[in-house]
């Protein structure tokens, strides 16, 4: 890793200061070393599925280690199940949690944006101040590559992604409800790799189900940059037989959006009119990981040690969750949760001078195909020559209400595992 110079560190952190102030945070109170380190300390950047889990499990592994979690949002909103908020099957409240559970585990949660990372000095910049760490966990999730779609960056208020669950989820649901019967809903899927491979196809099911019930003359046009449905392919194809209102177009990458003309343009030059558009932008690792040069040659994702999730580029920095690449795992909440635990165990061992054990993640992934039935894919992994390799992938034989019930049990349990 190229060591970040002090000037660069301060310059980068200035951007974060602005964000902190705009966000109404108390960044002005954070000057210099605003929480001097008195014990071994882990600073976690990002309180999503991977970061929150890592923070909790370091404390479970060794309560003498101080853990500080930096997360600007005061609430954890689950991306899994957020597609059901679009269709009205669930409420946003039912997938929203606070961070009090982590505090009960002794995690110090600070609702501020970490604006820069300086691995050479072992510091994380927050506002005008900084925190020192022994080890950092970087879990910033994904950032959108707005610049790859013409017209997108300047129209973020009108062209919604709803790919980070929260206000946009609600706003897209409202746009869909306000759409006239007979209207066209366009869903644009970015090229892999992106957060939650089956997510767009589950979203297609939920939108199509809603339209079938409430706007039977409406149509869902799916413009997929990929050559085919990239996850649970046969199961989604089977589910879509119930949705003649879906017009699926593979290998159709959206390269331009024009909200004035209510039109998107594909890389073939085809123009598609819409009444409501849901444009899921191309993605890369969260900004702090890119700015700290934790990303690899692709400049998008972070390569890591498969056993400890240490960055391939920076010492004492672990990267977990959707920002990572190189493991044969999907960018899913369940995998991020598993990575958070494996990294936490590794960190606890390393801070105690011990060799970390060899542990591997697992992935359980449910997709709802209507208001009561779901499908699932399950992957487990082992370690071979220091690398994560898949043991098996298994899919449900079909869609069923029983699988949907299992998904509810999974959700309740894993939400509790992450922030409970």
């Amino acid at each position, binding site marked *: 890793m190229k060591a970040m110079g002090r000037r660069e560190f301060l310059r980068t952190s200035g951007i974060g200061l602005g964000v902190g102030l705009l966000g109404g945070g108390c960044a002005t109170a954070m000057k210099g070393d605003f929480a001097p380190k008195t014990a071994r300390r882990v600073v976690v950047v990002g309180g999503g599925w991977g970061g929150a889990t890592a923070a909790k499990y370091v404390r479970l592994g060794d309560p003498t280690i101080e853990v500080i979690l930096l997360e600007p949002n005061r609430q954890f909103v689950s991306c899994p199940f957020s597609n059901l908020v679009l269709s009205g099957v669930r409420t946003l409240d039912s997938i929203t949690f606070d961070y009090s559970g982590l505090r009960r585990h002794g995690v110090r949660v600070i609702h501020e944006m970490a604006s820069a990372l300086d691995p050479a000095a072992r510091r994380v910049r927050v506002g005008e101040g900084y925190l020192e760490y022994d080890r950092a966990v970087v879990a910033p999730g994904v950032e959108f590559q707005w610049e790859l779609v013409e017209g997108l960056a300047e129209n973020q208020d009108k062209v919604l992604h709803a790919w980070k669950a929260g206000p946009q989820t609600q706003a897209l649901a409202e746009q869909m409800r306000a759409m006239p019967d007979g209207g066209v809903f366009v869903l644009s899927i970015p090229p892999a790799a992106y957060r939650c491979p089956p997510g767009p196809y589950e979203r297609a099911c939920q939108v199509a189900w809603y339209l079938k019930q409430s706007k039977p003359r409406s149509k869902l046009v799916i413009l997929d940059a990929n050559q085919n449905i990239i996850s649970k392919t046969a199961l989604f194809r089977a589910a879509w037989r119930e949705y003649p209102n879906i017009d699926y177009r593979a290998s159709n990458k959206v390269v331009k959006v024009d909200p004035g003309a209510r039109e998107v343009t594909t890389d073939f030059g085809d123009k598609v009119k819409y009444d409501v558009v849901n444009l899921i932008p191309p993605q890369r690792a969260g900004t702090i990981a890119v700015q700290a040069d934790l990303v690899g040659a692709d400049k998008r994702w972070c390569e890591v040690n498969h056993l400890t999730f240490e960055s391939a580029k920076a010492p004492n920095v672990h990267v977990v969750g959707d920002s990572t690449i190189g493991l044969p795992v999907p960018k899913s909440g369940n995998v991020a949760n598993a990575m958070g635990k494996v990294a936490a165990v590794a960190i606890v061992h390393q801070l105690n001078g011990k060799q970390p054990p060899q542990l591997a993640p697992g992935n*359980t992934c449910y997709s709802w195909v209507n208001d009561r039935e779901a499908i699932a894919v399950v992957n487990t992994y082992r370690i071979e020559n220091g690398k994560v390799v898949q043991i098996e992938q298994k899919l449900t034989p079909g869609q069923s209400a029983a699988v949907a019930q299992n998904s509810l049990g999974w959700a309740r349990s894993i939400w*509790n595992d992450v922030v409970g």
Partner: protein
Amino acid sequence: MQVVIGIALVLAAASVAGAGPLDTPGAMKALNCSACHGFAGQSAGDTMPILAGLWPEYFKKAIADYASGKRPSTEMEPYAKQVIQFGVDDYAVYFGGLKREPTKIAVDATAAGRGRAAAQPCVICHGPDGRGDRAKLIPDLAGQPPGYLKNQMMLFREDKRSPGDPSLKAIKELMKSLSDDTMSDLAAYYSSVR
């Protein structure tokens, strides 16, 4: 003072990773299980069983049956193979050594009362409080989540749990005689046994 220091040193030495509850090999390996089955096997969900307190030999049989496909489950077959890969004995000893806290899923007391009255045929094998028979690997039902218990009854009824296993013929016949409502009542009762 020397005695105090001595005890502190012993405690420190006993702690591989630093005095937390993840110090045993089983505890660390079982972290993958906690996504669905809760930390330390205390499932928070309704459909996943509580693993804490399972007899090690029962745990190992369940894992072997899931891994071989004898007990079909999309979710559990890959995970069972992973458990075997990493060493089932560590998991079995870990979960077996934990005390089962009863499920926090609330049930209707009236339904539980009906379930208790309907539980007579179950007592023959599972005992008066559903505590099971360890020697025969008949599981302890008390305090498990009601959704899990009902699901298993339905799987038995449909011959989808260990299909064709002659040792389960009696329970499958019994389940065929029960309505969905009675199964719900039985699940409410056994999950509420303390």
